[in-house]
Protein backbone atom coordinates (compact mmCIF):
# COMPACT_ATOMS: atom_id res chain seq x y z
CA UNK A 1 0.00 0.00 0.00
CA UNK A 2 1.43 3.38 -1.05
CA UNK A 3 0.86 6.83 0.38
CA UNK A 4 -1.81 8.64 -1.65
CA UNK A 5 0.20 11.87 -1.48
CA UNK A 6 3.87 10.92 -1.96
CA UNK A 7 3.84 7.20 -2.97
CA UNK A 8 6.14 6.19 -0.07
CA UNK A 9 5.08 3.01 1.84
CA UNK A 10 1.87 3.77 3.73
CA UNK A 11 1.52 3.46 7.50
CA UNK A 12 -2.15 4.44 7.91
CA UNK A 13 -4.96 2.89 5.89
CA UNK A 14 -8.17 4.99 5.63
CA UNK A 15 -10.77 3.25 3.42
CA UNK A 16 -13.36 5.86 4.49
CA UNK A 17 -11.30 8.40 2.52
CA UNK A 18 -10.25 5.91 -0.15
CA UNK A 19 -6.68 6.73 0.92
CA UNK A 20 -3.58 5.55 2.73
CA UNK A 21 -0.82 7.79 4.06
CA UNK A 22 2.81 7.59 5.15
CA UNK A 23 3.59 9.06 8.58
CA UNK A 24 4.38 12.66 7.58
CA UNK A 25 1.51 12.89 5.08
CA UNK A 26 -0.91 11.41 7.65
CA UNK A 27 0.10 14.07 10.17
CA UNK A 28 -0.58 16.79 7.57
CA UNK A 29 -3.96 15.20 6.81
CA UNK A 30 -4.76 15.08 10.57
CA UNK A 31 -3.93 18.77 11.03
CA UNK A 32 -6.07 19.59 7.99
CA UNK A 33 -9.05 17.72 9.48
CA UNK A 34 -8.74 19.65 12.75
CA UNK A 35 -8.46 22.98 10.89
CA UNK A 36 -11.49 22.04 8.75
CA UNK A 37 -13.52 21.22 11.88
CA UNK A 38 -12.59 24.47 13.63
CA UNK A 39 -13.38 26.53 10.54
CA UNK A 40 -16.61 24.75 9.52
CA UNK A 41 -18.10 25.11 12.99
CA UNK A 42 -16.49 28.49 13.86
CA UNK A 43 -15.22 26.90 17.09
CA UNK A 44 -12.71 29.57 18.03
CA UNK A 45 -10.65 32.32 16.52
CA UNK A 46 -7.08 33.56 16.86
CA UNK A 47 -6.21 34.72 20.38
CA UNK A 48 -9.18 33.09 22.11
CA UNK A 49 -8.22 31.18 25.26
CA UNK A 50 -8.98 27.45 25.13
CA UNK A 51 -9.14 25.08 28.08
CA UNK A 52 -8.60 21.50 26.88
CA UNK A 53 -10.02 18.77 29.12
CA UNK A 54 -7.30 16.11 29.44
CA UNK A 55 -8.02 12.56 30.63
CA UNK A 56 -4.57 11.20 29.82
CA UNK A 57 -6.01 9.13 26.97
CA UNK A 58 -5.08 9.33 23.30
CA UNK A 59 -7.88 11.61 22.16
CA UNK A 60 -7.45 14.44 24.64
CA UNK A 61 -3.64 14.39 24.43
CA UNK A 62 -3.79 14.35 20.61
CA UNK A 63 -6.17 17.31 20.78
CA UNK A 64 -3.95 19.36 23.10
CA UNK A 65 -0.83 18.54 21.10
CA UNK A 66 -2.44 19.52 17.82
CA UNK A 67 -3.88 22.78 19.21
CA UNK A 68 -0.43 23.67 20.55
CA UNK A 69 1.15 22.93 17.17
CA UNK A 70 -1.46 25.13 15.51
CA UNK A 71 -0.35 27.98 17.84
CA UNK A 72 -3.65 28.11 19.75
CA UNK A 73 -3.71 29.66 23.24
CA UNK A 74 -4.42 26.40 25.05
CA UNK A 75 -4.18 25.27 28.69
CA UNK A 76 -4.95 21.83 30.10
CA UNK A 77 -7.52 20.73 32.68
CA UNK A 78 -7.38 17.43 34.54
CA UNK A 79 -10.19 16.26 36.81
CA UNK A 80 -8.76 13.72 39.29
CA UNK A 81 -11.56 11.22 39.92
CA UNK A 82 -9.70 9.59 42.87
CA UNK A 83 -10.24 6.06 41.51
CA UNK A 84 -7.55 3.82 43.06
CA UNK A 85 -5.08 2.35 40.58
CA UNK A 86 -6.42 4.45 37.70
CA UNK A 87 -6.60 8.17 38.45
CA UNK A 88 -3.02 8.43 39.73
CA UNK A 89 -1.69 6.88 36.50
CA UNK A 90 -3.87 9.09 34.32
CA UNK A 91 -2.77 12.16 36.28
CA UNK A 92 0.92 11.21 35.87
CA UNK A 93 0.44 10.87 32.08
CA UNK A 94 -1.23 14.30 31.89
CA UNK A 95 1.37 15.98 34.12
CA UNK A 96 4.25 14.47 32.12
CA UNK A 97 2.62 15.56 28.85
CA UNK A 98 2.08 19.14 30.04
CA UNK A 99 5.53 19.44 31.62
CA UNK A 100 7.24 18.28 28.40
CA UNK A 101 5.37 20.91 26.37
CA UNK A 102 5.30 23.80 28.85
CA UNK A 103 1.50 23.60 28.89
CA UNK A 104 -0.31 25.23 31.85
CA UNK A 105 -2.36 22.66 33.74
CA UNK A 106 -5.37 23.21 36.00
CA UNK A 107 -6.15 20.24 38.29
CA UNK A 108 -9.49 19.68 40.01
CA UNK A 109 -9.27 17.09 42.78
CA UNK A 110 -12.67 15.47 43.33
CA UNK A 111 -11.59 13.98 46.69
CA UNK A 112 -10.90 17.53 47.94
CA UNK A 113 -14.33 18.54 46.57
CA UNK A 114 -15.97 15.76 48.61
CA UNK A 115 -16.93 13.93 45.41
CA UNK A 116 -14.41 11.07 45.06
CA UNK A 117 -15.95 8.77 42.43
CA UNK A 118 -15.57 5.52 44.47
CA UNK A 119 -17.63 7.15 47.24
CA UNK A 120 -20.17 8.43 44.69
CA UNK A 121 -20.40 4.90 43.23
CA UNK A 122 -21.15 3.47 46.67
CA UNK A 123 -23.94 5.95 47.34
CA UNK A 124 -25.82 6.51 44.08
CA UNK A 125 -28.22 3.99 42.59
CA UNK A 126 -27.75 5.07 38.96
CA UNK A 127 -24.95 3.76 36.69
CA UNK A 128 -21.82 5.52 37.90
CA UNK A 129 -20.65 6.44 34.36
CA UNK A 130 -23.54 8.88 33.87
CA UNK A 131 -23.03 10.44 37.31
CA UNK A 132 -19.27 10.70 36.76
CA UNK A 133 -19.91 12.36 33.39
CA UNK A 134 -22.23 14.87 35.00
CA UNK A 135 -19.66 15.72 37.68
CA UNK A 136 -16.85 16.07 35.13
CA UNK A 137 -18.93 18.37 32.87
CA UNK A 138 -19.80 20.50 35.92
CA UNK A 139 -16.14 21.00 36.82
CA UNK A 140 -15.08 21.47 33.18
CA UNK A 141 -17.49 24.38 32.92
CA UNK A 142 -16.66 25.81 36.33
CA UNK A 143 -12.89 25.70 35.70
CA UNK A 144 -13.29 27.31 32.27
CA UNK A 145 -15.61 30.05 33.58
CA UNK A 146 -13.47 30.82 36.62
CA UNK A 147 -10.28 30.82 34.55
CA UNK A 148 -11.70 33.28 32.03
CA UNK A 149 -11.43 30.86 29.08
CA UNK A 150 -13.60 31.51 26.04
CA UNK A 151 -13.76 27.85 25.00
CA UNK A 152 -13.73 24.44 26.62
CA UNK A 153 -12.36 21.86 24.15
CA UNK A 154 -12.78 18.11 24.56
CA UNK A 155 -11.23 15.19 22.69
CA UNK A 156 -14.50 13.62 21.54
CA UNK A 157 -13.90 11.93 18.20
CA UNK A 158 -16.13 10.69 15.39
CA UNK A 159 -16.62 7.30 17.07
CA UNK A 160 -17.78 8.97 20.30
CA UNK A 161 -20.11 11.33 18.48
CA UNK A 162 -21.60 8.69 16.18
CA UNK A 163 -22.15 6.31 19.13
CA UNK A 164 -23.86 9.06 21.10
CA UNK A 165 -26.00 9.94 18.10
CA UNK A 166 -27.00 6.29 17.71
CA UNK A 167 -27.92 6.11 21.42
CA UNK A 168 -29.97 9.32 21.22
CA UNK A 169 -31.65 8.15 18.02
CA UNK A 170 -32.55 4.73 19.43
CA UNK A 171 -34.43 6.59 22.18
CA UNK A 172 -35.66 9.35 19.80
CA UNK A 173 -34.55 11.76 22.48
CA UNK A 174 -35.63 15.06 20.94
CA UNK A 175 -34.00 17.24 23.58
CA UNK A 176 -30.57 15.62 23.20
CA UNK A 177 -30.88 15.40 19.40
CA UNK A 178 -31.65 19.11 19.20
CA UNK A 179 -28.29 20.16 20.63
CA UNK A 180 -25.87 17.31 19.93
CA UNK A 181 -22.98 18.55 17.88
CA UNK A 182 -19.35 19.56 17.78
CA UNK A 183 -20.07 23.09 19.01
CA UNK A 184 -22.28 24.34 21.83
CA UNK A 185 -22.36 28.14 22.00
CA UNK A 186 -21.86 29.95 25.32
CA UNK A 187 -25.20 30.39 27.09
CA UNK A 188 -26.52 31.35 30.54
CA UNK A 189 -23.36 30.60 32.51
CA UNK A 190 -22.13 27.81 30.24
CA UNK A 191 -18.90 28.47 28.35
CA UNK A 192 -18.65 27.58 24.66
CA UNK A 193 -17.82 23.90 24.13
CA UNK A 194 -15.98 22.57 21.10
CA UNK A 195 -14.99 19.13 19.80
CA UNK A 196 -12.26 19.78 17.22
CA UNK A 197 -11.64 16.03 16.62
CA UNK A 198 -15.18 15.24 15.47
CA UNK A 199 -14.04 14.52 11.90
CA UNK A 200 -11.41 11.97 13.07
CA UNK A 201 -11.85 8.39 14.30
CA UNK A 202 -10.17 6.96 17.36
CA UNK A 203 -8.02 4.83 15.05
CA UNK A 204 -6.72 8.09 13.60
CA UNK A 205 -6.06 9.69 17.01
CA UNK A 206 -4.23 6.51 18.06
CA UNK A 207 -2.07 6.67 14.90
CA UNK A 208 -1.40 10.36 15.59
CA UNK A 209 -0.23 9.69 19.16
CA UNK A 210 2.05 6.88 18.02
CA UNK A 211 3.59 8.96 15.25
CA UNK A 212 4.05 11.96 17.57
CA UNK A 213 5.55 9.80 20.34
CA UNK A 214 2.86 10.80 22.84
CA UNK A 215 2.75 8.54 25.92
CA UNK A 216 -0.89 7.91 26.76
CA UNK A 217 -2.73 6.36 29.69
CA UNK A 218 -4.54 3.52 27.92
CA UNK A 219 -5.92 1.39 30.75
CA UNK A 220 -9.74 1.38 30.71
CA UNK A 221 -11.59 2.86 33.65
CA UNK A 222 -12.23 -0.02 36.12
CA UNK A 223 -15.84 1.15 36.46
CA UNK A 224 -16.65 1.26 32.73
CA UNK A 225 -16.98 -2.49 32.13
CA UNK A 226 -20.14 -3.26 30.12
CA UNK A 227 -20.75 0.40 29.23
CA UNK A 228 -23.45 0.57 26.55
CA UNK A 229 -21.44 3.06 24.47
CA UNK A 230 -18.84 0.37 23.76
CA UNK A 231 -21.51 -1.88 22.22
CA UNK A 232 -22.82 1.01 20.08
CA UNK A 233 -19.27 1.60 18.84
CA UNK A 234 -19.03 -2.08 17.88
CA UNK A 235 -22.27 -1.85 15.91
CA UNK A 236 -21.03 1.21 14.05
CA UNK A 237 -17.67 -0.47 13.41
CA UNK A 238 -19.51 -3.35 11.72
CA UNK A 239 -21.36 -0.86 9.55
CA UNK A 240 -18.16 1.04 8.73
CA UNK A 241 -16.35 -2.19 7.86
CA UNK A 242 -19.02 -3.14 5.31
CA UNK A 243 -19.55 0.38 4.04
CA UNK A 244 -16.52 2.65 4.58
CA UNK A 245 -17.44 6.27 5.23
CA UNK A 246 -20.88 5.47 6.65
CA UNK A 247 -19.96 6.59 10.18
CA UNK A 248 -19.06 10.11 9.04
CA UNK A 249 -22.04 10.22 6.66
CA UNK A 250 -24.36 9.28 9.55
CA UNK A 251 -23.02 12.05 11.81
CA UNK A 252 -22.47 14.73 9.18
CA UNK A 253 -25.89 14.07 7.65
CA UNK A 254 -27.44 14.47 11.09
CA UNK A 255 -25.68 17.82 11.62
CA UNK A 256 -26.81 19.15 8.24
CA UNK A 257 -30.27 17.64 7.86
CA UNK A 258 -31.39 15.98 11.11
CA UNK A 259 -30.50 18.39 13.87
CA UNK A 260 -32.24 21.43 12.37
CA UNK A 261 -35.55 19.53 12.50
CA UNK A 262 -35.04 18.63 16.16
CA UNK A 263 -33.97 22.21 16.97
CA UNK A 264 -37.21 23.49 15.44
CA UNK A 265 -39.24 20.88 17.29
CA UNK A 266 -37.64 21.71 20.64
CA UNK A 267 -37.66 25.53 20.26
CA UNK A 268 -39.20 27.12 23.33
CA UNK A 269 -39.51 23.79 25.19
CA UNK A 270 -36.28 24.09 27.21
CA UNK A 271 -36.45 25.06 30.85
CA UNK A 272 -34.89 28.38 31.87
CA UNK A 273 -31.59 28.35 33.72
CA UNK A 274 -30.68 30.14 36.93
CA UNK A 275 -27.59 29.98 39.17
CA UNK A 276 -27.52 27.14 41.70
CA UNK A 277 -27.95 28.74 45.14
CA UNK A 278 -25.19 26.52 46.58
CA UNK A 279 -22.42 26.70 43.93
CA UNK A 280 -23.54 29.30 41.38
CA UNK A 281 -23.47 26.90 38.41
CA UNK A 282 -26.34 27.20 35.91
CA UNK A 283 -29.21 24.83 36.60
CA UNK A 284 -32.82 24.30 35.57
CA UNK A 285 -33.71 22.88 39.02
CA UNK A 286 -33.76 24.19 42.60
CA UNK A 287 -30.13 23.18 43.01
CA UNK A 288 -27.73 21.73 40.44
CA UNK A 289 -27.26 17.98 39.99
CA UNK A 290 -23.77 18.01 41.48
CA UNK A 291 -24.87 19.81 44.66
CA UNK A 292 -27.67 17.24 44.91
CA UNK A 293 -25.01 14.49 44.82
CA UNK A 294 -23.02 16.35 47.50
CA UNK A 295 -26.13 16.44 49.69
CA UNK A 296 -26.63 12.71 49.12
CA UNK A 297 -23.05 12.00 50.17
CA UNK A 298 -23.53 14.13 53.29
CA UNK A 299 -26.64 12.10 54.12
CA UNK A 300 -28.97 15.08 53.62
CA UNK A 301 -31.16 13.53 50.93
Amino acid at each position, binding site marked *: *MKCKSCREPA*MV*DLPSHNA*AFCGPCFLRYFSGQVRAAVKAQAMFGPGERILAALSGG*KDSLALANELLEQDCRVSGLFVDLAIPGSSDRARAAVEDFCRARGLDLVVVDLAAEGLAIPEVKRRVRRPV*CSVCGKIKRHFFNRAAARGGFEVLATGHNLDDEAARLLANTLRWDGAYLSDQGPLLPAEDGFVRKAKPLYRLTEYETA*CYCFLKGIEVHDAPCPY*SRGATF*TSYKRLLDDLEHNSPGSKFAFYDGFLNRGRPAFEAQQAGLGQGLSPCPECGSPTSGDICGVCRIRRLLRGED
Partner: protein
Amino acid sequence: MIRVRLEPDGKILEFPRLNTVLQLLNRLGLRFNQVLVIRGPELLTRDRRLYAGDELTVRRVTSAG
Protein backbone atom coordinates in the same frame (compact mmCIF):
# COMPACT_ATOMS: atom_id res chain seq x y z
CA MET B 1 8.60 -17.49 15.08
CA ILE B 2 6.69 -14.19 15.23
CA ARG B 3 6.19 -12.73 18.69
CA VAL B 4 3.15 -10.50 19.33
CA ARG B 5 2.47 -8.41 22.41
CA LEU B 6 -1.19 -7.43 22.89
CA GLU B 7 -1.88 -4.07 24.52
CA PRO B 8 -3.28 -2.93 26.86
CA ASP B 9 -3.56 -6.38 28.53
CA GLY B 10 0.11 -7.27 28.04
CA LYS B 11 -0.51 -10.82 26.79
CA ILE B 12 2.28 -12.35 24.64
CA LEU B 13 1.48 -14.69 21.74
CA GLU B 14 3.81 -16.54 19.38
CA PHE B 15 3.00 -17.67 15.85
CA PRO B 16 5.23 -20.10 13.95
CA ARG B 17 4.16 -18.84 10.54
CA LEU B 18 2.30 -15.75 9.32
CA ASN B 19 2.69 -14.08 5.94
CA THR B 20 0.91 -10.76 6.33
CA VAL B 21 -0.59 -8.40 8.88
CA LEU B 22 -4.04 -9.33 7.59
CA GLN B 23 -3.38 -12.99 8.42
CA LEU B 24 -2.35 -11.98 11.93
CA LEU B 25 -5.47 -9.87 12.40
CA ASN B 26 -7.67 -12.70 11.15
CA ARG B 27 -6.02 -15.07 13.64
CA LEU B 28 -6.70 -12.57 16.42
CA GLY B 29 -10.28 -11.89 15.26
CA LEU B 30 -9.56 -8.18 14.85
CA ARG B 31 -10.17 -5.59 12.15
CA PHE B 32 -7.35 -3.41 10.90
CA ASN B 33 -8.87 -0.17 12.18
CA GLN B 34 -9.51 -1.55 15.68
CA VAL B 35 -5.79 -1.82 16.46
CA LEU B 36 -2.39 -0.40 15.66
CA VAL B 37 0.09 -3.02 14.42
CA ILE B 38 3.53 -1.77 15.37
CA ARG B 39 6.94 -3.06 14.29
CA GLY B 40 9.74 -0.94 15.72
CA PRO B 41 9.13 2.66 14.66
CA GLU B 42 6.58 1.69 11.98
CA LEU B 43 2.84 1.27 11.79
CA LEU B 44 2.02 -1.63 9.46
CA THR B 45 -0.90 -1.59 7.05
CA ARG B 46 -2.80 -4.85 6.56
CA ASP B 47 -0.99 -5.78 3.34
CA ARG B 48 2.52 -5.64 4.86
CA ARG B 49 4.59 -8.84 4.94
CA LEU B 50 5.72 -10.37 8.22
CA TYR B 51 9.03 -12.21 8.72
CA ALA B 52 10.37 -14.83 11.11
CA GLY B 53 11.87 -13.05 14.11
CA ASP B 54 9.46 -10.09 13.91
CA GLU B 55 8.45 -8.61 17.25
CA LEU B 56 5.10 -6.85 16.95
CA THR B 57 2.81 -4.90 19.21
CA VAL B 58 -0.93 -5.00 18.58
CA ARG B 59 -2.49 -2.07 20.43
CA ARG B 60 -6.26 -1.75 20.75
CA VAL B 61 -7.56 1.71 19.92
CA THR B 62 -11.12 1.50 21.25
CA SER B 63 -11.46 3.49 24.43
CA ALA B 64 -13.69 1.99 27.09
CA GLY B 65 -14.26 4.81 29.51
